[in-house]
């Protein structure tokens, strides 16, 4: 069965770019454009992995992370934070809330991001 990823990101361009590459790798990609919708979809589809931006409308990434890790159904889903926030405080907070990996978009090539995602999907 193909693996499913939920990509919570408010930028449609980025969603398309990363999404198309992941789909070529045989991964099913579902998306949500804001935090609240992200939580709702995560509970519905129970993906194998969540890719989460931190600056999001309605509910920010930290709130999403906190809620999903509290919820019995979703707490075991690995969450990779993919953001452009890079202060030590934000990284510590996200990891403390249960993110398995923290990737700063500007510091990574697309290939590196994809291989990190695949690593956590194994």
């Amino acid at each position: 069965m193909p693996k499913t990823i939920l990509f919570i990101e408010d930028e449609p361009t980025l969603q398309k770019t990363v999404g198309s590459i992941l789909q070529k790798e045989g991964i099913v990609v579902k998306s949500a454009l804001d935090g609240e919708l992200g939580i709702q979809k995560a509970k519905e589809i129970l993906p194998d992995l969540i890719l989460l931006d931190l600056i999001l409308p309605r509910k920010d990434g930290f709130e999403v992370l906190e809620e999903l890790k509290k919820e019995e159904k979703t707490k075991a889903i690995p969450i990779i934070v993919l953001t452009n926030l890079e202060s030590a405080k934000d990284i510590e907070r996200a990891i403390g809330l249960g993110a398995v990996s923290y990737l700063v978009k500007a510091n990574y090539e697309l290939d590196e991001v994809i291989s990190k995602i695949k690593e956590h999907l194994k």
Partner: protein
Amino acid sequence: MWYNLNNMSFKKVCDELNVVKSCRQYGLTLWQCPNFLFLVLGFIVIFTILITYYIANLYMPDPRIAALIVMVVSAILMIIGNMIVQSFNRLAKANQSKSEFISIASHRLRSPITNIKWMLSILMKSNGKEIDSEQLEQMRAIKENNDRMNTLVNDLLIAARVDQGRLILKSEEMDLKALVEQLIKEYQPYAQANHIALHLQSDQDLLKVFADRTQIKIAVQRLLENGIKYIKGIGSVKIRLINKKKSVRCEVEDTGVGIPKQEQKKVFQKFFRSQNIMRYQTQGSGLGLFIAKSIIQNSRGKIGFSSQENKGSIFWVELPVKL
């Protein structure tokens, strides 16, 4: 200082009186902070009044008049002092807003830059079929320019963080040699294209240092990049890693244009670019060495250089081997 207490909540008054908090907010040390200086000024004035009163009491027939005069003069002094402090406050606030603006603008620019970078990498991979070599070359040029923009935005973000006193660094055990080897690997194609040889000499059993790996990489990268960038024609950049008693020293020696003696004092200043390089190397923000210095000093390390015009420069950093 005239406060309109009716319009000001108790908490706000407390915040106003909390000197340490407001100094931290501006990212200033106590002795640079106008609020703290004003407090010191106040204490000095009060102390002067008391001393004057004491002396006048001893030596003058009617000391009350002398004390009154001194008090009036002191009051005037305090009013003037307060006006100066207010101006400093306004300046500090304006500076803070500027740093915040740079920080927000740079952060907003990062998303489109990342989008371009990632989309280009997809486009460039589909070459061979639909894209000819000329188009691929053009894409490489776009990528190169986008990377430059990314570096500039990153530099502005770090510089804004330094200005705001928000450059927080981790302290973790790290292998400086592995980091330098990785950097040399990354910069090898760029150096080769410019006919510059990169060499690494390292002490055996190089000690591990305690610093923030990501930030130290940025600092050493700026030194290496400068070394390569400011060589005219064929040349070389040597990196030496040396064990010292309580630190590890990393030297970056280049055979470049060097820095004129009269400009050497300004090398670590923000936006500094030396006159001799401006003539032929227009790229560069002048933030690299400022950032390198801020990172190294915030890592309990040292940074310095020696340089001779038309011969080359040696930039060095020393990082602590203990927590």
